[in-house]
């Protein structure tokens, strides 16, 4: 299938990406050819097949809910683009 410009813009919005005109054009055609290629999966009858989420199945592991000190506040904030201990700072949005 071929993606329309509106579809490409919709996907970009959902993915929180801002695309240039040239990118909309480029991704539109590249994604269309990739989607056309993945449609080869439609050749298979999978109506009676169970989906595989993980190839090696494992039950959810449980542990005791005990509070531990993992990282210090300062360490955790160190990589923030902007911070003021004990907070992440963000621009005013309202």
């Amino acid at each position, binding site marked *: 299938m071929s*993606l329309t410009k509106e579809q*490409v813009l919709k*996907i*970009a919005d*959902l*993915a*929180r*990406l*801002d*695309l240039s005109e040239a*990118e909309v054009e480029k*991704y539109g055609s*590249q*994604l269309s*050819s*990739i*989607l056309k*290629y*993945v*449609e*080869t*999966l*439609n050749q*298979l009858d*999978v109506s009676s*097949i*169970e*989906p*595989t*989420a*993980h*190839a*090696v199945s*494992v039950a*959810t*592991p449980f*542990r005791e809910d005990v509070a531990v000190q993992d*990282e210090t506040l300062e*360490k*955790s904030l*160190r*990589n*923030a*683009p*902007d911070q003021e201990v004990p907070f*992440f700072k*963000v*621009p005013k*949005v309202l």
Partner: protein
Amino acid sequence: MTELYDLTIHELQDLLKTKKASSQEITTSVFQRIKSVEPRVQAYITLTEESALAQAKLADEKISSVGAQFIAPLFGIPIGIKDNFLTEGIKTTAGSNILNNYIPPYNGTTVQKLLDAGAIIPGKLNMDEFAMGSSNETSFFGTPKNPWDLERIAGGSSGGSAAAVAAGECFASTGTDTGGSIRLPAALTNLVGIKPTYGRVSRYGVIAFASSLDQVGPLTKDVMDGAIMLQALAGHDPKDSTSINTPVPNYVEGLKKLPKDLPLKGWKIAIPKEYFVEGMDAEVSKATQEAIETLKRLGAECREVSLPHTQYGVPTYYILATAEASSNLARYDGIRYGHRKSDPASLVDLYKKSRSEGFGSEVKRRIMLGTYVLSAGYYDAYYIRAQKVRTLIRQDFEKVFEENDVILTPVSPTPAWKIGEKAADPLKMYLSDIFTININLAGLPALSLPCGMTQSGLPIGMQIVSKHFQEEKMLQAAYAYEQATSWSQMRARL
């Protein structure tokens, strides 16, 4: 005379134990080599010479105090770390501009295990951005060159991990493999690359790409080193909920106990016919056929089998991996870490501009594809269908393993290609992983090992696949082959 940087881990271990070399001499040899070849190879994003030499000094002091004979296999040996492994206090970028200044507050489990085993970290290795690529050309930090031909790619996504070991800039490295990212670069640079069973090695503290497929493993100069590295990395980790709590065998002992005469007597090796297809490079095909003959001489019975859903692996992978990536990469929003756009017009604008400036074009393309296949109205048609095809691919392997010990295939349809050759066509690039991707979908362990050279001197690799958690089997088969041949003793000349 052979230089120290050309040796293997097990050879260095012998030198350390007999006090013929010190960790400081070994580490210095590596940094001298880096100074001489790194400007041409570009394997590293970050070098940590000062802390590495300090680590080496401590290692030598410890060797003096406890006695050289008691040291662990990786003790005092420089091991390069792919730049998507979190390293406390050392910049970790995942090859992306969005993490250009990220300094992790802790070590991931596998990095900590290597440090606890006494390994020395010389630096962080170049990689495709967020491990998305087959040639390491999507990195924000440039493309590592193949030490066998500097005009060619070293493979991806663990391109720096491969180039550095092949060039003598470290003795082994860590990699991650989501669709072939350890095995492909290993094959293109004459190394042994191991992708363990899904769940065998902890991913805690490794930057996620596609969580149902990602697995950590080593790149080394030979099979014995691969066994030594896997031993150090493997094991259950309560911090990774997909880590499986099952005993880890002694891989090194497993290799040593292999009989000298007809080591593979009684082994059944499956050769899937779907992996010998038209369009495959003639020299790769010939090298693989010759390897099969060698395995037969070693006692193995090689027989043709069928994995009928092979051709559906790449499309299945590009639905599942991109879907998972679009979700995993949602965390890069410019709030808690990573790049942030200044002066945004709104909150959504902050997210969009930060992400658009931070991510490169392949990452954006995959996020877009993953977002689309998960979006309302398309989820069943793409995502659920791909998960069902994944079941068929997994069952193909299960059936073959009912009657066979290991599976043998090529790793890459071609030897290393020229830089830029496939970069403009994403689909063409995706097909480079055609022989490795299904292994990830099935969660199986596989390794890549050297099995030949082209006329023009480019390495060729083959892949050996085992049943779940039977890494020792593929290591044994690979070791038997390696002992009978000399490919993995060849070093790139720079």
